[in-house]
């Protein structure tokens, strides 16, 4: 039990580190948002579940915290991405396609 929990927590902390490395290194708000959402959600989920497995008395409460993070973290990051799109933050100059602009033009044509 102890070994399984330690392995899961290690994977979770490595995911947390990679997510924050992405937030530091990537060139654009949207790329940073992507790294900061996916890696951080999975990393926090695995870390908290791993602590719950290492200490089985706490498993129910850690499951509640992990499920809460799993539900709410994508929602808040989606709201942040939508807000930065609407407040006019430009994409980085290496971006290839911008579907949101195409959708706006398509709606204007109709």
């Amino acid at each position, binding site marked *: 039990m102890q070994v399984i929990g330690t392995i899961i927590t290690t994977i979770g902390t490595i995911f947390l580190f990679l997510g*924050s490395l992405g937030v530091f290194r990537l060139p654009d708000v949207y790329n940073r948002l992507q790294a900061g959402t996916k890696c951080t959600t999975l990393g926090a989920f695995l870390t908290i579940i791993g602590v719950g497995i290492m200490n089985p008395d706490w498993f129910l409460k850690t499951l509640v915290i992990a499920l809460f993070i799993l539900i709410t973290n994508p929602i808040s990051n989606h709201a942040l991405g939508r807000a930065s799109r609407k407040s006019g933050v430009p994409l980085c100059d290496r971006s290839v396609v911008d579907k949101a602009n195409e959708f706006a033009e398509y709606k204007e044509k109709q």
Partner: protein
Amino acid sequence: MGEIIFLVIIGVAISLCLLRMLKGPTAPDRAVAVDTIATITTALLVLLAFTFERYVYLDVALVYAVLTFIGSVAIARFLEKGI
């Protein structure tokens, strides 16, 4: 012993996000960095609860997760259309 390694890795992760928060060119950059720090801190609180054998810290982590969710949504709403 293992807990110390976890705490060091998470400390490095938080300081990388903090650098991005200090550097970030626009306001949404800083908001994203703060939101990432908040999620990492929730995991850090759970790890601290395991390290110090305190059951109470789990409650702190739960309340912190709720409050940062509300804070992020409020910041996003403010960036989108003002107060």
